């Protein structure tokens, strides 16, 4: 039996013609992983100071093929359409790789000073980024699942990196268990999707779903729901957000930044793939589901964030609320698909810049305060005015105050919701407006504590030096946050997807 199978496979075998250029960013990342492991295996402990440098250079080199691919333009389709490199996937790959580079900058001192395992840290980080870049191009159920596992499994380990701290172990454990649970739900959804579509390729599934029509096929609804729920865990949408605050608080803060930005963006990318290439023919199911997810996420996230006393936990709940804002364009997806997509990807890019910046500031401040409790931030302005101003700027951007990037991101989503001119769109826009006001309270509370409160007892108001890596990442993210707000064309030129073809 096996012999005949291998015989048949071999007889029909032709060496595939692979577009190496389209694969170049992934290949560079794989090479970086191999080099990291090799250097670690050869030099052992002496390799520790080299690791962040190798990881950083690898990520920077991976940007070069992205730039050449973008310069050439066009859509490259590999493996009979299972793997597509187009303008959207290039923008998202750039987002992942640049975010990871900033996380490497943030980690360098944290990991070295904390005396944690170093080479494995960067190897796993890059492996996770590799999964994200694969995710951005996959147009196939199997490819999406493999990418999802490749990006998640290293992240489970990274979340538990502070081995000696029970809270970090708790973070890793919760993330792992919830992640596996989500994978199981997702796989069930995928199996139903495959049953409905008769193919693992998203475009073909989309075509089949269209042929099924809209009546009497409850299995399509089930497939869609399970798939969306699987990814909703990843983007920490309410009611699938339970892991996020504990994981964010317990994990090493640079890893938290990575999870909150890159990992969440990867979840959204996966949602974009399945919604836009496969389920877009059923807006009657998609739109209400995303309306509920979006409203629940922003409302619950914001209300719980009001009561937080730890800045990292507050940022976790704010991340849940922001995920709600990012889910909103899906709720009006049928009216103007490419406008919704543009609003969403623009939000992802701007959110990455401002959230990474906020985490960078928290990491820098925690080097002094030794905690992320809001009380310990009191009177920070008197002795570390630069960081205070930077964090305030990022919080203002997260709030959505013009002329910062966060304002334009929110504006884009509002515009899409209102232009759709549907009941779902209008109601969601109103709920979003209310939530934006609620969010201002907790962001400003941190700012007030830093600017107006007294320095807490027993703290010598002496600043500590911020390492160059963190300073650079704060400068870069701050520059981008301001640039995207003042000159939105800088990001909208990249995220104009009106030419991208969707659906079956």
């Amino acid at each position, binding site marked *: 039996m096996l012999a005949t199978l*291998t*015989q048949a*496979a071999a007889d029909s075998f032709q*060496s595939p013609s692979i577009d190496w250029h389209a694969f170049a960013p992934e290949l560079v990342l794989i090479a970086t992983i191999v080099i990291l*492991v*090799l250097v670690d*295996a050869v030099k*052992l402990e002496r390799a520790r100071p080299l690791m962040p440098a190798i990881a950083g250079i690898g990520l920077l080199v991976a940007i070069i093929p992205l730039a050449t691919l973008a310069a050439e333009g066009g859509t490259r389709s590999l493996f009979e359409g299972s793997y597509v490199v187009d303008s959207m996937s290039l923008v998202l790959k750039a987002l992942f790789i640049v975010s990871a580079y900033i996380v490497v900058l943030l980690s360098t001192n944290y990991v070295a000073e904390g005396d944690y395992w170093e080479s494995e840290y960067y190897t796993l980080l890059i492996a996770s980024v590799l999964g994200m870049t694969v995710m951005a191009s996959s147009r196939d159920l199997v490819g999406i699942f493999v990418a999802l596992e490749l990006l998640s499994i290293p992240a489970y380990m990274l979340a538990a990196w502070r081995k000696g701290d029970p809270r970090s172990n708790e973070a890793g454990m919760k993330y792992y268990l919830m992640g596996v649970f989500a994978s199981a739900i997702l796989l069930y959804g995928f199996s139903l999707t495959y*049953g409905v579509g008769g193919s693992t390729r998203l475009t073909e599934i989309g075509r089949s779903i269209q042929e099924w029509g809209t009546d009497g096929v409850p299995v399509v609804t089930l497939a869609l729901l399970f798939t969306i729920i699987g990814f909703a865990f990843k983007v920490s949408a309410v009611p699938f957000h339970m892991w996020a605050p504990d994981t964010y608080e317990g994990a090493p803060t640079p890893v938290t930044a990575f999870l909150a930005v890159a990992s969440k963006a990867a979840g959204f990318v996966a949602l974009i793939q399945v919604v836009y290439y496969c389920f877009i023919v059923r807006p009657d199911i998609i739109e209400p589901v995303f309306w509920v997810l979006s409203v629940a996420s922003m409302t619950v996230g914001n209300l719980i964030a009001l009561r937080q006393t730890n800045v990292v936990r507050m940022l976790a709940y704010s991340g849940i609320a922001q995920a709600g804002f990012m889910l909103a364009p899906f709720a009006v997806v049928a009216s103007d698909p490419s406008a919704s997509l543009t609003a969403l990807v623009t939000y992802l890019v701007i959110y990455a810049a401002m959230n990474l910046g906020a985490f960078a500031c928290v990491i820098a401040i925690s080097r002094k305060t030794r905690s992320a409790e809001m009380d310990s931030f009191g009177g920070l302005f008197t002795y570390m005015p630069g960081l205070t101003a930077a964090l305030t700027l990022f919080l203002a951007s997260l709030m959505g105050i013009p002329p910062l990037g966060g304002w334009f991101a929110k504006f884009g989503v509002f515009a899409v919701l209102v232009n759709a001119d549907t009941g779902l769109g209008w109601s969601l826009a109103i709920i979003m407006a209310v939530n934006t006001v609620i969010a201002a309270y907790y962001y400003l509370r941190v700012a007030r504590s830093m600017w107006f409160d007294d320095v807490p007892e027993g703290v010598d108001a002496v600043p500590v030096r911020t390492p160059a890596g963190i300073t650079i990442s704060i400068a870069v993210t701050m520059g981008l946050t301001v640039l995207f707000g003042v000159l939105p064309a800088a990001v909208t030129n990249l995220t104009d997807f009106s030419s991208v073809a969707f659906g079956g």
Partner: protein
Amino acid sequence: MASSPLSDFLRSYLTAAIFGSLGFILVGLLLFLSYLVRPNRHQAQKYLSYESGVDPVGSLWSQSQIRYYIFALLFVMFDVEAVFIFPWATRVEAYGVFGLVEMFVFIGVLLLGLVYAWRKGVLKWA
């Protein structure tokens, strides 16, 4: 109702469900019958865990060596490698140079893992 592919699909589940429940009923029936006819004498020894006739010693919770796990992990790595190599080896000439290079890249990356494990001292049984 016209037979659609989906209802055919669901009907095969129905067959599976009928056979599954028949299995449960059969086993349950036999257990119930033996409950009716067997003698019923309680003894403390009957509630001990069975360890090949030896009295169990110590607590139920025991720690096992993590190194067994690591060796198992390394074994799985090369076990899975074999799954890919055997079919490839049966028809290696058909895959040509491309197949050869591909397989060596694959084995090379896996070997890298072994080298890493060896250098980190995992292979020492100390």
